[in-house]
């Protein structure tokens, strides 16, 4: 409650109460919530795997030639981790915070603001994991993930979910209105989606375009998921995980600080 104290001073196991609230609501609509992560990868696999693959053939990645569908399937998982966490802690959290005043109600109970915000981010990561599990099941059906290495994608979804959930929450803490989320989506999410090593290898780009791509958290998540799905994790994965941990350690506390400023008067 007192501004300026270390944020983790006010975090207890009660943050799971916030998570449980969202889980209760999610369970009510699970049939609808399940469909996008189930259908989307199927549509993408159909379009890219069947349609585009015929044009592209194989891709040179990590010193090996792999089929185009093998190349993009893990990237689709990474993109979905980003979307699920980011959209949860932007639009969905904003609706709870601003329109439904759910956070105000929680702040009249023994929950702290820090627990509420971190609980929301952890929930965003949970949505990313749920989507990942569904997509992995679908993609594994096509034999595009090699196990047991592929199981590491699940903790990667937790990490990526926390990273994108935290930056989403930071935007939520500073935007003036819900329409303004268009801005980070246009300037941050969409460029990553296109240029984060998702649809073509970054080696195809000239260095002036390639190097900035390594600032994108999605690039690192794509690299890590792709290497583990392919069964050959290397230094790219290690750097990717380190980058995502650092990214989370910056934006998670930042989102809490910005939220304190926004909500506590």
């Amino acid at each position: 409650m007192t501004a300026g104290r270390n944020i983790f001073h006010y975090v207890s196991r009660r943050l799971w109460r916030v998570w449980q609230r969202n889980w209760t609501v999610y369970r009510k609509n699970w049939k609808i919530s399940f469909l996008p992560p189930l259908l989307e990868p199927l549509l993408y696999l159909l379009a890219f795997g069947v349609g585009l693959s015929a044009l592209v053939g194989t891709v040179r990645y990590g010193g090996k030639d792999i089929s185009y569908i093998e190349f993009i399937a893990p990237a689709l998982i990474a993109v979905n981790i980003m979307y699920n966490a980011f959209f949860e802690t932007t639009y969905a959290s904003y609706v709870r915070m601003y329109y439904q005043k759910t956070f105000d109600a929680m702040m009249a109970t023994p929950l702290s603001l820090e627990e509420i915000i971190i609980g929301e981010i952890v929930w965003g990561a949970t949505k990313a994991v749920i989507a990942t599990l569904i997509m992995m099941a679908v993609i594994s059906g096509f034999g595009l993930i090699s196990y047991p290495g592929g199981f590491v994608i699940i903790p990667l979804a937790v990490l990526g979910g926390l990273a994108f959930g935290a930056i989403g929450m930071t935007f939520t803490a500073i935007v003036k209105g819900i329409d303004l989320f268009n801005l980070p989506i246009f300037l941050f999410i969409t460029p990553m989606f296109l240029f984060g090593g998702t649809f073509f290898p970054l080696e195809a780009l000239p260095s002036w375009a390639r190097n900035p791509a390594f600032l994108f958290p999605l690039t690192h998540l794509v690299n890590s998921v792709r290497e583990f799905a392919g069964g050959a994790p290397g230094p790219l994965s290690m750097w990717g995980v380190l980058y995502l941990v650092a990214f989370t350690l910056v934006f998670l506390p930042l989102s809490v600080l910005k939220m304190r400023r926004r909500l506590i008067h």
Partner: protein
Amino acid sequence: MESVIEAANLQKTFDGIKAVDGVSFRVLRGECFGILGPNGAGKTSTIRMIYGFSPMTGGSLDVFGLDIRTDWRTIRSKIGVCQQDNNLDPELTVLENLFVFARYFDVRRKDALGRARRYLAFMALDHRRESQVLELSGGMLRRLMIVRALINEPDLLILDEPTTGLDPQSRHQVWERLEELRSRGLSILLTTHYMDEASRLCDRLIIMDHGRILVEGNPADLIREHAGKEIIEIPNPRHEIRELVREKMPDYEDLGHRLVIYLDEREKSFQEIRSYLRAEGCIMRMATLEDVFLRLTGRDLRE
């Protein structure tokens, strides 16, 4: 008497503006205490400090003998708050709303169900247990907010404008239920814009304006002290009447299009001017808390 709230020189500053400017009061166990005041008087700011939503700028504030700055979690676990907005979960049913809220207080599900049934019946919402919150009327939402505030069986109930926007039937029902809770010994702190609500429910109250307390006392004493016993209102007074009042009446307000006369000894003064006023369509009535409020805080609009 044991006090549940002790505020001493309480202060709250927003961006250099003093919303609460040195407020001191005590709320005793088992009483209903009211905070009245025009918009922007500092009522909600005061209440939000009491349940640890806003950090205080200065002064001291103890709730249940604990310091709100350090023991906010314990304090919040023992109070129920009904905020101004109906911030229920629109995606959940009535019962689910109560379960989710009970979890925040670590109330076990079995206990939560018992309490939910009891308080829903108490607030005449038993038949809507399985309804979606979006289907409820304004009065039902407000009553559900009060049920939710009771789910942790609090020692202090805080109500921020509990009946604003309700129809007369709903307001009276809420008042009856709150009286019942008070008679069971629950301490209640309430803000309101309705003077009839404050007169009826509050054992003691303060009237605030510009972040300060103007008066404190029980409603009947405040009326006697600040508005007298009875009031004569004269709409569109003629010149002679205005002169007469100015001459004879020690305590009156001239609002231009209306004279408001505050009377202490009914017979003498009233009979004396009655004959003059008979044709004027004057209104004679009991003094109310509203008269006190308007006299003390003025009649200018607060927007």
